[in-house]
């Protein structure tokens, strides 16, 4: 029904592809200056993608990145900046891990255990982001400030709870501490990937479901329409009958609930415990991916995979003596240039369409002319 025109698809791709090419160029120059032949480096990285293990790991990274990006995108669609996905997922993963590892869970069937863990994580994420939403609608506190502060509070809270006197145990054979390990019934088995030694997270399916649900919510439901309308013009949404305060709270809760899922694939698929070395900072990666994928469910999937692949293939660089930070530079340049590129394309598209409308109307006869 929604007509797809090749022009709009082409223009849609122009920005991310352009940004990617630009980033490659910048990195190529940096590599050349520092005395590393850029083409050899690229060949090494692409070559490492031929190993199934790298692909499986890239998919795993992409799964968590994608969930994080969707959480951010729900806010972005309403012009809400949920910078707090990071704190939300860490707190959620920690508390959910403590629940999943608790001994009373042993007696429950596996499906119930997993569902309870996931729901607990969503609940914690939603509560944590809900605090920011509540502050915004009652006191007008900017969600940017409150979520950043809530990140710091989450860090402190996790550190406080992750103590052998409270929710943590010492991990056997190391000086690491973490929540009680989740026994097999509470884990989500991986999906074997060709000859890779590491499996793909079973919860990659969850990421796909979240992506489809996100798309459906935005494009097919009244709630999604209200959300987008509020993001585009709050005053017009209010006049159309949208209760903006309710929408702010609802979208913050939803964003937080999805943020709660971010740690789940790693927790239930690999770590099986929330310990000191649980991956941190994924919430910020989510912001970059939501920007690159333009809050689009498919765009973000590509962006998440690109990010994951860049991360994983960078491991090979250590072997050839190239600093792997070059990848971080590349990711940074991509995000910066894509934001600019999207704005340029947006303006160009608007101009193009205005011209089209003008042209279409200039050639069709108006009723008066037709009668004359």
């Amino acid at each position: 029904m929604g007509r797809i025109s090749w022009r709009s698809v082409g223009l849609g791709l122009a920005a991310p592809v352009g940004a990617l090419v630009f980033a490659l160029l910048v990195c190529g120059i940096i590599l050349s200056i520092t005395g590393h032949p850029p083409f050899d480096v690229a060949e090494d990285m692409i070559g490492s993608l031929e190993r199934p293990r790298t692909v499986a790991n890239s998919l795993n990274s992409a799964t968590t990145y994608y969930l994080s990006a969707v959480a951010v995108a729900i806010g972005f669609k309403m012009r809400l900046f949920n910078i707090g996905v990071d704190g939300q997922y860490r707190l959620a993963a920690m508390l959910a891990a403590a629940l999943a590892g608790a001994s009373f869970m042993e007696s429950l069937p596996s499906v119930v255990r997993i569902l309870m863990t996931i729901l607990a994580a969503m609940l914690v994420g939603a509560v944590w982001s809900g605090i920011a939403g509540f502050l915004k609608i009652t006191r007008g506190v900017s969600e940017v400030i409150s979520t950043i502060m809530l990140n710091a509070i989450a860090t402190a809270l996790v550190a406080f709870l992750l103590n052998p006197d409270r929710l943590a145990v010492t991990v056997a054979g190391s000086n690491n501490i973490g929540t009680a390990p989740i026994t097999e019934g509470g884990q989500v088995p991986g999906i074997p990937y060709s000859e890779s030694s590491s499996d793909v997270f079973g919860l990659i399916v969850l990421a796909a479901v979240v992506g489809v649900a996100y798309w459906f919510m935005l494009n097919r439901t009244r709630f999604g329409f209200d959300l987008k309308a509020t993001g585009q013009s709050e005053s017009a949404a209010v006049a159309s009958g949208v209760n903006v305060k309710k929408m702010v709270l609802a979208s913050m809760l939803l964003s937080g609930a999805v943020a709660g899922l971010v740690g789940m694939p790693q927790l239930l698929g690999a770590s099986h415990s929330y310990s000191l070395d649980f991956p941190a900072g994924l919430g910020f990666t989510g912001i970059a991916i939501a920007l690159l994928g333009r809050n689009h469910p498919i765009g973000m999937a590509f962006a998440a995979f690109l990010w994951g692949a860049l991360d994983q293939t960078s491991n090979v660089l250590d072997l050839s003596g190239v600093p792997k930070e070059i990848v971080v530079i590349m990711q940074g340049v991509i995000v910066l240039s894509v934001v600019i590129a999207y704005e340029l394309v947006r303006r160009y598209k608007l101009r193009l369409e205005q011209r089209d409308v003008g042209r279409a109307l200039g050639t069709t006869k108006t009723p008066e002319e037709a009668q004359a």
Partner: protein
Amino acid sequence: MNVAVRTGTVHALVGENGAGKSTLMKILYGMQRPDEGTISIDGTQADLSTPADAIAVGIGMVHQHFMLADNLTVLENVVLGDEPRGGGGIDFKAARAKIRDISARYGLGVEPDRLVDELGVGERQRVEILKVLFRGARILILDEPTAVLVPQEVDELFGNLRELKSEGLTILFISHKLDEVLSVADDITVMRRGTTVASVSPGDVTARQLAELMVGSALPVPELRESTVTDTPVLEVDGLTVTAPDGRTVLEEMSFTINAGEVLGIAGVEGNGQAELVEALMGIRPLQAGRIALQGKDITKLSTRKRRDAGVGYIPEDRHRQGVLLEATLWENRILGHQTRAPSVRGLLLNRAGARADTQRIVDEYDVRTPNIDVLAGSLSGGNQQKLIVGREMSGNPVLLIASHPTRGVDVGAQAAIWEQIRKARAEHLAVLLISADLDELIGMSDSLAVILRGRLVASYDPKAVTPEELGSAMTGAGEGT
């Protein structure tokens, strides 16, 4: 498209919305490039690809929406982007002297050290004019400069323009307001659909002839046919009181009733509570006291959405702020304000097919000029956006239509279409609240008229017996109402 402007004159450019006035201005100011054709200034061909080129050849633009930083002084605003250098910094002393000099020479009365924040609209506009003069402009483009001004300020502006003209500057003046054009211009060029259709001098035409040149056909007249007023009250407002966030009372003890098939016109100088009244009726602004009933049912406590569902259609005063989503397609805009009603939705889901089909119906019935319903609302002209809004608000069987400045900023063709829709609404026994600054529209389209002054309804008139002059004096509080 051809136009020749003589040095030292005020040249007016008139035309409907979408006639190409703004495009022409953008080309002259280097914001857009022409596909074909040339621009010559004093006989030499100019290549204007950026605003900087335009400034270099002495063209300056005064935008409709002011581009001033409120928290800076006049001086700082004027030099911004064109700072006179001296002694390793900005030479404010020289700039101040230059501003005083320009201000005195053209009688602008601009004080360089005042904060822009403290200035009124008319003064801000003079700062904008001064800004372009400061950059050495000899040709000034003014885009709808009177749109934001009250009548006295318009007179002052015209005084300034005559002053500028007598100093040998050339002024290109874009406007819809034909009386103003006739009073200030030396030459008038009329544009229609991207071409110049006539060049006239103000002595030879009347405002009506000019308007007909703009539209290319006879002008519509706002008028109602036989009365359709019934005695069934639709909207009853009783003791409505609204205070602004700063505690000021903006509406006081307002009471009125609109019956089915009746158009109640509200006349008033802008800022006397009209916007607040509309927002209070729509449930956007909280009430201090009072009661609102729709078809006998108390709706005072209902949300905006519930009120809309109960059958309130709303044509907002500022369509870009409240009426449309500029970056959404036409069919998505059809859903706006109807998120709970068929055919746009089915339960909690959107009904895309239904919304699209109904958008097509509106486009056809209301003559919205658009290539298709998938274009963004922002790429339509103002008149076509407004027709889409009217069509949308008339769908879903409303019982009350709140029309706030429904024909503001739309072209004459769209104006006629909108008036016709209001007549049709009235014939279908809707109650209509019409708020307008156009007194001819109010008198012609209303069954009864009330005057709003400082948040109170101070007088009511029979539109058949009242003249615009009487109404005008009641609006300023000078006349005695009955």
